[in-house]
């Protein structure tokens, strides 16, 4: 509907802008007074932390790009130029390098939050699926960014990952040649990876905007997983959650700073301090830690095509998670069996990560196969069946009137009917 907005801002400049382009009214509505469940725990900080992290990555990335040379002959030495000669170049680079790890730590916890409290369930399916798109984009961006320093791990990581596509019959090798822009990973590959590594974060910003837009349609989930019923259940986002998120940001920055300033290469690989050598593969090729579980799934399958499919499948299965989990109850707090099994799943993923860091020999093959099996079993069998079999604990009546003693799944005092969550 066309027409000027009736702005309620007193400041004449803000009012003038807001009347013509109601961004201030929108910010006020979506971030200041936005009704937010009052019972968030600190797990609900991680969405804001991920946003902060993305901002840090984009800003440091822009300044790094001013000094980086996306050329196979110059890339490695231009990174050394950044580290040694550019003012605070070492800081920019170590922040960017460790920022990738921090981004995945924060995002993985954010995803775990969603899994534990059932944030993917109706009506938040699309919100969740947008989140999976964000994860995939993040992975693509991180992978291409890791190639840019053009060290040994950069080069061989790029070779191995792009070769995954060769598993597909008939078109596979053609796809790989297309990705490379040649017959091996070389200058054209580095050039396009740089272009895409610069582009994708902004695509990410767009999808995150949609993710947040979708969130503001459904409203946030909460630790009880029940719907907001009255204004008594909510608080305005500002100042309550801006204050609470600020604590999270500070703690996040402390962890980040300890990594950057005191152990900047702890999560890195020594081999990436050796310039790329297309004629010699390092003895141990491992991806960055955040890819290890997927890498283990890939290697757990003896068949090349099947391994690749399983690896991509382990991510794609998350798209259909809202329909695989048949339980009407969101929060694991009221799902006595799921609350245990989600931890088994977490352990399986961690063990997969450890397997991914070891050579695929002996016990590591066995372990990675068991865990891969459990990973898919969890999604494809346990979740659909569990929803039918599990008897959920009684849900509290509302957020502002929680049932005493409900935490930990202990016995309930009378009064609260054990009804499953109603559809919103």
């Amino acid at each position, binding site marked *: 509907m066309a027409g000027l907005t009736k702005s309620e801002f007193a400041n004449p400049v803000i009012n003038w802008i807001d009347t013509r382009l109601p961004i201030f009214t929108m910010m006020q509505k979506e971030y200041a007074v936005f009704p937010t469940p*009052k*019972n*968030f*725990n*600190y797990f609900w900080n991680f969405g804001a932390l991920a946003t902060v992290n993305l901002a840090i990555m984009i*800003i*440091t990335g822009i*300044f790094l790009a*001013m*000094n980086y040379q996306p050329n196979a002959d110059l890339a490695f030495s231009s990174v050394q*130029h950044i580290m*040694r*000669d*550019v*003012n*605070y*170049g070492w*800081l*920019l680079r170590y922040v960017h390098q460790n920022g990738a790890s921090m981004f995945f730590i924060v995002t993985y916890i954010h995803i775990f939050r969603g899994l534990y409290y059932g944030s993917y369930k109706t009506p938040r399916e699309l919100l969740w699926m947008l989140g999976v798109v964000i994860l995939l984009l993040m992975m693509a961006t991180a992978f291409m960014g890791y190639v840019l320093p053009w060290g040994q791990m950069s080069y061989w990581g790029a070779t191995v990952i792009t070769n995954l596509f060769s598993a597909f019959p008939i078109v596979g090798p053609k796809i790989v040649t297309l990705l490379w822009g040649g017959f091996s990973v070389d200058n054209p590959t580095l050039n396009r990876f740089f272009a895409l590594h610069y582009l994708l974060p902004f695509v990410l910003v767009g999808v995150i905007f949609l993710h947040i837009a979708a969130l503001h349609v459904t409203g946030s989930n909460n*630790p*009880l997983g029940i719907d907001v019923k009255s204004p*008594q259940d909510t*608080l*305005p986002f*500002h*100042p309550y959650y801006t204050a*609470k998120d*600020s604590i999270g940001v500070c703690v996040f920055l402390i962890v980040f700073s300890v990594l950057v300033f005191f152990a900047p290469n702890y999560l890195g690989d020594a081999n990436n301090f050796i310039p790329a050598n297309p004629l010699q593969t390092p003895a141990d090729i491992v991806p960055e830690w955040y890819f290890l579980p997927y890498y283990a799934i890939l290697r757990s399958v003896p068949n090349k095509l099947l391994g690749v499919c399983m690896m991509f499948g382990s991510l794609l299965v998350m798209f259909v998670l809202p329909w695989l989990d048949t339980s009407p109850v969101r929060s694991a707090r009221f799902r006595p069996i799921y609350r245990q099994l989600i931890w088994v799943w977490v352990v399986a993923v961690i063990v997969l990560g450890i397997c991914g860091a070891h050579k695929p020999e002996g016990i590591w093959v066995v372990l990675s196969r068991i865990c891969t099996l459990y990973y898919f079993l969890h999604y494809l069998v346990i979740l659909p069946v569990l929803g039918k079999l599990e008897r959920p604990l009684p849900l*509290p009546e509302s*957020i*502002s*009137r*929680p*049932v*005493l*003693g*409900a*935490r930990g799944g202990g016995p309930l005092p009378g009064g609260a009917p054990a009804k499953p969550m109603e559809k919103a």
Partner: protein
Amino acid sequence: MADPSAAAATHHGPIHDSTGVPRRDLLQLITAAGAAIGAGAIAWPLIDSMNPSKDVLALSSVEVDLTPIVEGQGIVVSWQGKPIFVRHRTAVEIKEAQDVKLNELIEPQPDTARVKPGHDQWIILIGICTHLGCIPLGNKPSDPRGDWGGWFCPCHGSQYDTSGRVRHGPAPANLPLPPYAFESDTKIKVG
């Protein structure tokens, strides 16, 4: 902890600030100030990274052999990315440069202050017009040298004399001198 089940639900008072006005107390002001200081501290490394890096700052010097430059001719060498004019002046040009009355000049400066003692025939200049940064013409024999026999800037018509002093605007100042020294009578080191 914002864990609802952690606290007993005893009373249900107003959860919003009763006035509806965001409260601004000292604590919040200090926190906001701290955040602003933090943001400033973050901004500085970003801005400073755009300043010249150490390799750019490490002054590289360039040596120029003067023997091939015949009288009346000039050459251009590159130093720190800037053009350096090296001209071998004729006796007439030197005399012109020395005899000019200082009060006729836009930026008065005697010729002796612009050459090294005992090397009157060599004028060494940073060849960047002081108006808007173009490179004046006048080194090649075929170049226009302007009415004062020095250099002529093609961009906006500034003219310099044989000592590199501006004689006709819009340039406001003389061509600057680079740091240099004579290593021998036939060799200079710029930088």
